[in-house]
C-alpha cells in the first residue's frame, strides 16, 4: 500500500506542474500523428525528440517521450482499420479484422473499440509496472537465446491462426516470408546472403515490404476497381460500442493486456509480437473462431490491448534493471541517463518521488490518448468518405514519402513498389499478406537465437528440452500448429485419426 500512497503523491505533484501536463499532451498528439503515417514509427519520433529534451526538466521530458511512444503505437491502428495500412508493424494484427469491419460499414465502432482497448491495455500495463515491477524484473533476465528462439517459433505458429481463408495459402505466404527473411547479413557469421551486391539489402527492408504489401497493394487494387465498389464501406455507425457489446470484449482486453505486459518485458520482443500472440489467444478462447479474419471485434480488441500493453512491459526491465525491452525504451534509457537518473534497482529508492510522478504522468498520457482518440474519431473516420480519385493517389504518395523517411533511401521505395505489386497479385489470388509480415518479424529472431543458443551450448541441442520456459513455449507452438489439423480430422468421422493426432503431442 506504500506504493499506492506514493502514486497519490505523484498525482498531486504532477498537477502542480502544468508544463509537464502540456508536454504530455503534446507528446501523445505527436505520437498519434506519427503512428498514423506509414513508415514513421514511435522509435523514430522518440529518437528525433530526444535532443529537444536536453534542456528540459526530467518530468516533462520523460512524459513527452512516453506520450510519443504510447501515441505512436495507438496511432498505427487507425489507418490499419480504415484503409488496411498498418502504420506500425504491431497494427498489422489489428488490420486483420479491423479492415474487414470497415468494409462491413462498422468503421466507427471498430475505431472506438481500438481506442478503448489501447487505453485499457496501456493503463493496466502501467499499473502492473507500478505495483509489480520488482516481482517481474528478474524474469526478463531468464530469457536467453533458447527462450527467445522458442518464443519466435510460437510466433511463427500463429501463421496457422491468421490464415483464415486457406491454411495452405497462409503457410505458403509464411514460407515465402521466411525465405525473404534470409536476405541480409548472416546473423552469426556476418557475411552477406542473397544481397546481389546491394549494400541496401544487408538487412531485410522490413517496413518497406510491409507498406508495399498492405498499403500500396490496396491502392493498386482500388485503382483497378470501379467507383461503386466502395460505397458500402462509407457507413460509419456509432463510435463507442454499446455496453452489451463491450462486456463481451472485457475478458479479451484484460487477457491481452496481461500478455502484452509480459511479452513487452522480454528484451528483444515488442508490440509486434505481442499483438499477434494476443490475437491468436483471443481466437483460441473465442466461441466463434470462424469469424476471425472476417471482421471480429475481439481480434481488434486483442491486438490493440496487447500492443499498448507492451508499453508498460517494456518500461519494466528498463527502469528496474537498466535493460531496454525494445528500440523505443533503448532511446528512453538514454533520456533517463541524460537527466542524471540512474535506471536500476536503486532508481525507485533514490528517486521514488520523481519516479512516481512520472508514473502518474504516464497514466495521464493514456487518459489524454483516450480523449484525443474519442474526440477525433468522428473526423478521422471521414477519411473513408474521401472519393477514391483523391484518396488513392494520397495513399500512394504517403507510401512513397513514408518509405523514404525510414532510411532516406530511394532503393527502399523500389522495394516498397515491388512489394506492392506482389501484394496486389497475392490479393487477386487470395493469398493473405500478414503471414509474410509475421515471418519477417519472427524468422530472423528464430534463426539468430537458434544458432546463438547452439553456440552458447557448445553445439548441443539439449536446450530444446532441458529449459522449462523453452519447453512450455515450444509445446504451445506445437499445440497451435496441430489444433486446426486435429479439428479438421475430428470433423470427419474418423475416430482413429483423431486419436493419432492427440497422442502426437
Amino acid at each position: 500500500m506504500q506504493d499506492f500512497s506514493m502514486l497519490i503523491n505523484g498525482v498531486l505533484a504532477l498537477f502542480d506542474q502544468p508544463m509537464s501536463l502540456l508536454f504530455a499532451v503534446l507528446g501523445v498528439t505527436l505520437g498519434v500523428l506519427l503512428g498514423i503515417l506509414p513508415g514513421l514509427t514511435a522509435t523514430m519520433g522518440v529518437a528525433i525528440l530526444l535532443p529537444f529534451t536536453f534542456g528540459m526538466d526530467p518530468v516533462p521530458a520523460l512524459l513527452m517521450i512516453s506520450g510519443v511512444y504510447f501515441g505512436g503505437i495507438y496511432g498505427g491502428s487507425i489507418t490499419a482499420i480504415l484503409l488496411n495500412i498498418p502504420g506500425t508493424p504491431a497494427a498489422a494484427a489489428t488490420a486483420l479484422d479491423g479492415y474487414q469491419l470497415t468494409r462491413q460499414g462498422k468503421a466507427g465502432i471498430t475505431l472506438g473499440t481500438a481506442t478503448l482497448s489501447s487505453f485499457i491495455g496501456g493503463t493496466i500495463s502501467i499499473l502492473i509496472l507500478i505495483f509489480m515491477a520488482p516481482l517481474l524484473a528478474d524474469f526478463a533476465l531468464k530469457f536467453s537465446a533458447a527462450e527467445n528462439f522458442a518464443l519466435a517459433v510460437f510466433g511463427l505458429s500463429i501463421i496457422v491462426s491468421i490464415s483464415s481463408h486457406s491454411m495452405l495459402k497462409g503457410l505458403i505466404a509464411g514460407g515465402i516470408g521466411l525465405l525473404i527473411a534470409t536476405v541480409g547479413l548472416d546473423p552469426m557469421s556476418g557475411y552477406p546472403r542473397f544481397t546481389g551486391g546491394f549494400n541496401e539489402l544487408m538487412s531485410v527492408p522490413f517496413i518497406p515490404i510491409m507498406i508495399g504489401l498492405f498499403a500500396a497493394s490496396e491502392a493498386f487494387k482500388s485503382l483497378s476497381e470501379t467507383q461503386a465498389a466502395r460505397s458500402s464501406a462509407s457507413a460509419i455507425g456509432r463510435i463507442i460500442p454499446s455496453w452489451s457489446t463491450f462486456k463481451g470484449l472485457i475478458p479479451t482486453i484484460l487477457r491481452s493486456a496481461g500478455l502484452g505486459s509480459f511479452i513487452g518485458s522480454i528484451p528483444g520482443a515488442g508490440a509486434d509480437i505481442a499483438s499477434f500472440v494476443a490475437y491468436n489467444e483471443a481466437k483460441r478462447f473465442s466461441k466463434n473462431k470462424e469469424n476471425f479474419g472476417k471482421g471480429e471485434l475481439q481480434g481488434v480488441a486483442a491486438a490493440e490491448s496487447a500492443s499498448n500493453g507492451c508499453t508498460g512491459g517494456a518500461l519494466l526491465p528498463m527502469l528496474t534493471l537498466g535493460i531496454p525491452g525494445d528500440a523505443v525504451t533503448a532511446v528512453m534509457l538514454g533520456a533517463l541517463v541524460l537527466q542524471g537518473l540512474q535506471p536500476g534497482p536503486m532508481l525507485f529508492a533514490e528517486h521514488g518521488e520523481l519516479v512516481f510522478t512520472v508514473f502518474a504522468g504516464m497514466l495521464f498520457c493514456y487518459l489524454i490518448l483516450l480523449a484525443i482518440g474519442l474526440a477525433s474519431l468522428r473526423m478521422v473516420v471521414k477519411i473513408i468518405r474521401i472519393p477514391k480519385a483523391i484518396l488513392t493517389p494520397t495513399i500512394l504518395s504517403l507510401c512513397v514519402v513514408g518509405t523514404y523517411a525510414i532510411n532516406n533511401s530511394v532503393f527502399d521505395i523500389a522495394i516498397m513498389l515491388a512489394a506492392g505489386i506482389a501484394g496486389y497479385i497475392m490479393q487477386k489470388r487470395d493469398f493473405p499478406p500478414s503471414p509474410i509480415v509475421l515471418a519477417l518479424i519472427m524468422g530472423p529472431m528464430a534463426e539468430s537465437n537458434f544458432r546463438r543458443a547452439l553456440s552458447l551450448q557448445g553445439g548441443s541441442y539439449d536446450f530444446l528440452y532441458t529449459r522449462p520456459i523453452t519447453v512450455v513455449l515450444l509445446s504451445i507452438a506445437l499445440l497451435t500448429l496441430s489444433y486446426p489439423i486435429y479439428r479438421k480430422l475430428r470433423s470427419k468421422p474418423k475416430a482413429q485419426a483423431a486419436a493419432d493426432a492427440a497422442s502426437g503431442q
Partner: protein
Amino acid sequence: MKSRKLVSTLAKAIITSTFILGSIASAASYPSKQIEVIVPYSAGGGTDLVTRAFADAAKQYLPEAMGVVNKTGGGGAVGLSEIVRARADGYHIGMGTVELAMLPHLGMVTFQAEDFVPIARLNAEPSAISVNADSPWQTYDEFIAHAKANPGAIRIGNSGTGAIWHLAAEALADKTGTQFSHIPYDGANPAVTALLGGHIEAVTVSPAEVANHVKNGKVRILTIMSDERIAGFEDIPTLKESGVDLSIMTWRGIVVPKKTPEDIQMVLRDAVKQTANDDGFKSALAKMNLTHAYLDAPEFQKTISRDDVFFKDLMKKLGLGS
C-alpha cells in the same frame, strides 16, 4: 559551320566561367547554406546522439543549422558509401566511424579508408572486458588464467560478427594465445543483457555501455583496452598495465569525401574545432556517458591509417577478410 563553331566556343566560355565563378564563390562565402551530415547508423544510437549533439552545438559557429540525415544499413556500409559518393562541395559531410577502416577489409564495400578525408575526431570509446559481478574473477589476470586453462569455455558476447567489439575479443585471443567462444548479439545492449542474465561470461563492449550496471553493482570491469586510464574509470587498469600491448577503440568524427577542396576543408576544420571545444557539446557528451576525444585532422588521419593497417592484418589472420 562557322556559326556552330561560334556556339560551341560560346558555350565553352560560359561553362568555364561558371566553373571559375562557382569555385571562387564557394571558397569565399562557404558556408552559405545548410550543411548536411550523413550518419551511417539509425536515429537514437550512439553515433546518432554524438552527431545530433554536435549539430546542436554547431549552430553558434555556422550561419545555418546543420541537417542530420540517417542512412542506415549493412552495419554502416550504406551510410559510409553514401559519404564517399556525396558531392564534394563541403555541404555534404559525414560522421565517420571506425567501421570505415574495417569494412573494406571484410570485402563488403567498394570504398577504401583513403576515400575519406578526416576533419576532426570528436569521440572515442575503448573496448573493456566486463564480467558479471557474481563471477569469480576479480582481476584480468585471474580471468585470462581461467581462459587459458579452459580453452573455449569463456563465452564472450559481442555486438555482431565482424563488428569492433568482436574484433577486440579476437585480437585479445590472438595476442594472448587464448581461445574464447564468441557469441554475436544484435548490438551491445542485448550482449550486456545476456551478461546480466548469466548466459555468457564476459562482454567486450565499451565502459560507457556497461557504466549503468557497474554503478548498480551488477557488472565488474576487469580491464580497459586503452593506452592510458580513462576519465570516469580511473581505478580500472588498462590492458597494457597487464603486459598485453593492445588498445582497441571505436571512434566517431567528421569526415568529407576525398575531392572536397582544400580551402573548404580548412573552413570546416575551424568550425568543427570550435564546436568540439564548446562547453555545451562537451557536457552533452558527458551526460550521455560518451567520451569527448577531440583530435585535429592530421592526428585523426594517423589514427585512421593505424587502424586501417591493424584491421587489415587482424582480419587476414582471422580469415574474415576476402
